[in-house]
């Protein structure tokens, strides 16, 4: 980023429809998986697996449908910053709620 954007960092990489089709398939499989997993009693792991699958699907959308994999470092940094702030909001608010009445949590 020490160079001003006189010529721009425009990525010309055009993602092929094959990639899109593969990702679509992966997302559909992921959806089926998450529904199927919800019918099995995994105790504490049910929500964890559900979130894990959702995060994976979201990552695929971000990287491929939204082209972040082929984008500049700035774009990747921007996405990271957003996720970081989002996690800060949730995590640090939880710091209060978790540590209130221990038994209730």
């Amino acid at each position, binding site marked *: 980023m020490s160079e001003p954007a006189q010529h721009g960092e425009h990525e010309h990489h*055009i993602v092929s429809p094959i990639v899109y089709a593969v990702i679509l398939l992966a997302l559909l499989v992921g959806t089926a998986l998450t529904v199927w997993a919800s019918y099995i009693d995994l105790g504490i792991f*049910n929500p964890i697996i*559900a979130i894990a699958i959702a995060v994976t699907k979201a990552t695929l*959308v971000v990287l491929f*449908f939204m082209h972040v994999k082929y984008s500049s470092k700035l774009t990747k940094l921007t996405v990271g910053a957003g996720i970081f702030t989002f996690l800060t909001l*949730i995590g640090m608010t939880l710091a209060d709620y978790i540590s209130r009445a221990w038994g209730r949590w």
Partner: protein
Amino acid sequence: MSDSPAIVHGAAEAHHEHPAWQRHHFESVDQQADAAGFAMWLFLLTEIMFFGGLFTAYLIYRNWYYPAFVAGSHQLSIPLGGANTLLLITSSFTMAMGVWCAETRRKGGLVLCLVLTFILGAGFLGIKTIEYGEKIEKHHVPGFHFSLDSFTHPDKTNPVTRNDQPLAVDMARHTEVYFSLYFAMTGMHALHMIIGIGILAFMIFRAQAGAYTTGHVTFVENFGLYWHFVDIVWIFLFPLLYLISRH
């Protein structure tokens, strides 16, 4: 070189060749497209934080009132929610294909993809309307004669709720919080979908006129980012709202 004045050369810029859509404060179309894409991402950051507040509320109350959330979740239909998820994911695919068509200057393909995205999105909203209708019928809308009956006396004829324990009245009251979050989150999401569909309609007309297949793909690209983001929000909403303790 360090002695040269700040304001320098005048490359004869009198007749600077640039495409019609380049705004004059930009040096090149690349710079303009770059800036627009970056701006769109920053806007999506604001959307992440906007929904973030709702997810925070959800997380806290789900842990405080888990039985109420289970009971509330059982009132949602997995076939309908699942169908919506499939519709939205497919619409993300068609949108991505639309961007590809714009990039490879396939006008017909672009219009087709945008129309498909529109139809899938509208389908999503249609199913949502049905779901909301059901909630209204069963008096599960917070603030509008919210009824605790389904939770204190679970419906034995329904395979989903047949084995549910009836909730004590105080826990049953907390289902109102669940449904508040349900409507707030899916409602906010649906609002974003409606705006998206509106813009899609506009884009279909413009695409048909060839506006996006002459090299100027920025609008389609950036709308695609918005559409994918709305899809991602739903990817999280579906398991969090519909799939609580279904075993």
